[in-house]
C-alpha cells in the first residue's frame, strides 16, 4: 500500500490521514511493503512527525518494510530527532486515563473521611491549646485581625441578615396566620414567631448565612495563603498558623453570631408585625403577645446556640483552609467543604441541643 504525505504536514492535514490510512496499515505484516511518499513535504509539524514515528514503530512491531521517498530529508530528520524505539508502546496504554475501580473509590472515600475526622480532631486540639496559651499570654491574640474579621463576618453581614430575617418572619407569620385565622386565633402567631425565632430559627438562619459568607471565605483565604506558601512562612517565623490565622477568625465568628442573631430575630419580629398589621390586628396587641411569649430562657438558649454555631463555622472554615492542598482547585474544594461541613455540624448540634434541653427541661 502507499501513503503520501501532504506538502504541509500540519495537525489538520494529518488528522484525516491518521484515521483513514492507519487501519489499513494495521493489516500489513511480514513481507509487505509500505510505500511512504514524503517527497512533497515542505514543512512538518508535530503531528506529521508523530505519524512518521507511528509508521516506523508499527513496521518494527508488525515486520513490514517501508520504502521511503524522502526528497528533502524530512523523514530522516524526524527519525534522527526521535528514536523510534523510545516510543515502542501504545501511548494510550502507557498513560491510561486515571480511572479507579468502584471498590477502590469507596475504600478511598472511607479512608478519606477517617482522615478528615482525625485532621479535624488534631486541629481542634491545636486550637484548644492555642486558646489556653492565650489565656496566659493574652497579648499574643491578634486583636486587630480579630476586629477586622469581626467586621467582615459580622458588621458586613448585617444587611443580608436583616433582609433574610425580615422575610423569614414575614413568610412564617403569613403562613401561620392563614391557618390560625380559621380558628380565630391569629393573635397566637406572635407566640409562634417569638418562640420559633428565639429558640430555633434565629440562630439557624444566621448560622447558615455565616457559613455561606464567612466560613467559605475563611477557608479560601487561608487556603490561598497555603498555596502561596505563606502558611509555611508563618510556621518558619515561629508564628503558629493556628494562633495567627485561625483564632482571630474563630473568635470573630463566635462573637459575631449572637449579635447577628439578635438582629435577625428583631427583623423577623418586624416581619411578623407587618403581616399582623396587614391582617388588621392592632400592633400593641402583637407586641404585647411577643413580650409575654418571650422567656429569658429562650433568649439565652438561642444566643448560646448562636455562639456555638459561630464557633463551629469558624473552626470548620479555618480547619479546611489549613488543610488545603497545593493547587488552585484545592482552594475551591476547601471552601465547599467548609460550607458543607459547617452546615452538617450545625444540624447535628442543633439536634443534640434539642434533645439535651428537652431532657434538662429548659
Amino acid at each position, binding site marked *: 500500500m502507499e501513503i503520501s504525505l501532504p506538502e504541509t504536514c500540519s495537525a489538520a492535514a494529518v488528522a484525516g490521514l491518521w484515521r483513514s490510512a492507519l487501519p489499513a496499515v494495521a493489516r500489513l505484516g511480514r513481507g509487505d511493503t509500505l510505500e511512504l511518499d514524503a517527497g512533497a513535504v515542505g514543512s512538518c509539524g508535530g503531528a506529521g512527525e508523530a*505519524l512518521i514515528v507511528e509508521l516506523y514503530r508499527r513496521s518494527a512491531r508488525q515486520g513490514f518494510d517501508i520504502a521511503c521517498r524522502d526528497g528533502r530529508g524530512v523523514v530522516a530528520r524526524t527519525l534522527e530527532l526521535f528514536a523510534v524505539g523510545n516510543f515502542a508502546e501504545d501511548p494510550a496504554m502507557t498513560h491510561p486515563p486515571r480511572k479507579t475501580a468502584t471498590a477502590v473509590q469507596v475504600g478511598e472515600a472511607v479512608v478519606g473521611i477517617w482522615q478528615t475526622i482525625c485532621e479535624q480532631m488534631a486541629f481542634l486540639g491545636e486550637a484548644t491549646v492555642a486558646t489556653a496559651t492565650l489565656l496566659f499570654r493574652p497579648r499574643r491574640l491578634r486583636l486587630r485581625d480579630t476586629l477586622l474579621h469581626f467586621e467582615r463576618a459580622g458588621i458586613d453581614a448585617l444587611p443580608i441578615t436583616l433582609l433574610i430575617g425580615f422575610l423569614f418572619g414575614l413568610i412564617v407569620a403569613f403562613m401561620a396566620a392563614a391557618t390560625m385565622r380559621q380558628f380565630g386565633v391569629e393573635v397566637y402567631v406572635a407566640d409562634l414567631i417569638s418562640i420559633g425565632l428565639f429558640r430555633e430559627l434565629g440562630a439557624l438562619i444566621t448560622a447558615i448565612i455565616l457559613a455561606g459568607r464567612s466560613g467559605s471565605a475563611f477557608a479560601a483565604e487561608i487556603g490561598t495563603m497555603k498555596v502561596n506558601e505563606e502558611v509555611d512562612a508563618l510556621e518558619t517565623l515561629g508564628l503558629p498558623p493556628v494562633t495567627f490565622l485561625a483564632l482571630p477568625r474563630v473568635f470573630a465568628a463566635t462573637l459575631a453570631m449572637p449579635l447577628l442573631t439578635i438582629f435577625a430575630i428583631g427583623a423577623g419580629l418586624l416581619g411578623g408585625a407587618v403581616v399582623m398589621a396587614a391582617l388588621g390586628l392592632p400592633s400593641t396587641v402583637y407586641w404585647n403577645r411577643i413580650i409575654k411569649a418571650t422567656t429569658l430562657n429562650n433568649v439565652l438558649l438561642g444566643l448560646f446556640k448562636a455562639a456555638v454555631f459561630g464557633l463551629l463555622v469558624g473552626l470548620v472554615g479555618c480547619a479546611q483552609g489549613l488543610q488545603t492542598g497545593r493547587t488552585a482547585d484545592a482552594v475551591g474544594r476547601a471552601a465547599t467543604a467548609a460550607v458543607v461541613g459547617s452546615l452538617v455540624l450545625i444540624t447535628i448540634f442543633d439536634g443534640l441541643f434539642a434533645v439535651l434541653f428537652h431532657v434538662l427541661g429548659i
Partner: protein
Amino acid sequence: MREVVITVRDVDAGYTTPVIRGISFDVYAGEIFVILGGSGCGKSTLLKHMIGLNPPLAGEIRLMGDRLFGVPQEERLRALRHFGVTYQSGALFGSMTLLENVCVPLDSFTDLPREARYLVAEMKLELVGLKEYADYFPSDISGGMRKRAAIARAMALDPRILFLDEPSAGLDPVTSAELDRLILHLRDTQGVTVVMVTHELASIFAIADRCVMLDKQEQRLIATGSPAELRDHSELPAVRAFFNREAKNPS
C-alpha cells in the same frame, strides 16, 4: 532578504499611562531575539502587548502580518495560533500530569485521534527531555523541569514564534544553561523564532542573535544590536553598565 515574522511599530507600552514610548523593531524568522532592561522597565508589559493580553496604548504589532487588536475575530485567532508562550511562573495546570498539560492545546485545536495526540504530546516532551516524566504532576518536578514542560506545552501546536518571559528566573546556572541549550535546539530543529525577556547575561551571550534594550528612566528603546555589538561598541553609559555589570551610581 530575511523573512520578518514580527513587526513592532511606534508602540506605546503601558497599562493606562505609557511605561515606554515609541518602540519599533522587527524580528526575523529563526532568530533568538532578546528584550532586555532593568527590573520594572516594561519588558513584561511589552510582551503582554505582543501576545495579545493587553492592547498597546498606541502603535501596531503584527505577527506574521496578522494583528491581535482591532481586527475581526478570525484574524486575531489566526494571530494567536502563530505563537506559544511560557510565563514567568510556568503556569502549568496543577491538576494535570505533564502529558495532559501538553495535550490541552492538542485536544482543543486538532481533531487528531486520541492515540495520535498522546504520541504528539509524548514527542514534545521528548523534545524537551521530559518523556520519562510524562505522568508526573507539576508539583512533583523541579523548577527547571517545569519550565521545560511549559515550553513543551507552548510548542504543542508547532508555533512559528515562541515567547518566553524570564525563562531562567529562579534557576541555577547549570539548569539555566541547559535551558539555553534547549532553546537553541528548538530553534535549530523546529525552526521556531524565539523572543525572550531576560536579564541573564550568560544566557544572552550564549544564545541571543539580537537584542533590544529598554530603559526605565528614558522610557524608550535605547539600543538594538547583537550582544557583542552592544557590549563593545555602544556609546551609551546605561548599555555599557548593563553589559559590564556595573552599578550606575557607584558610591
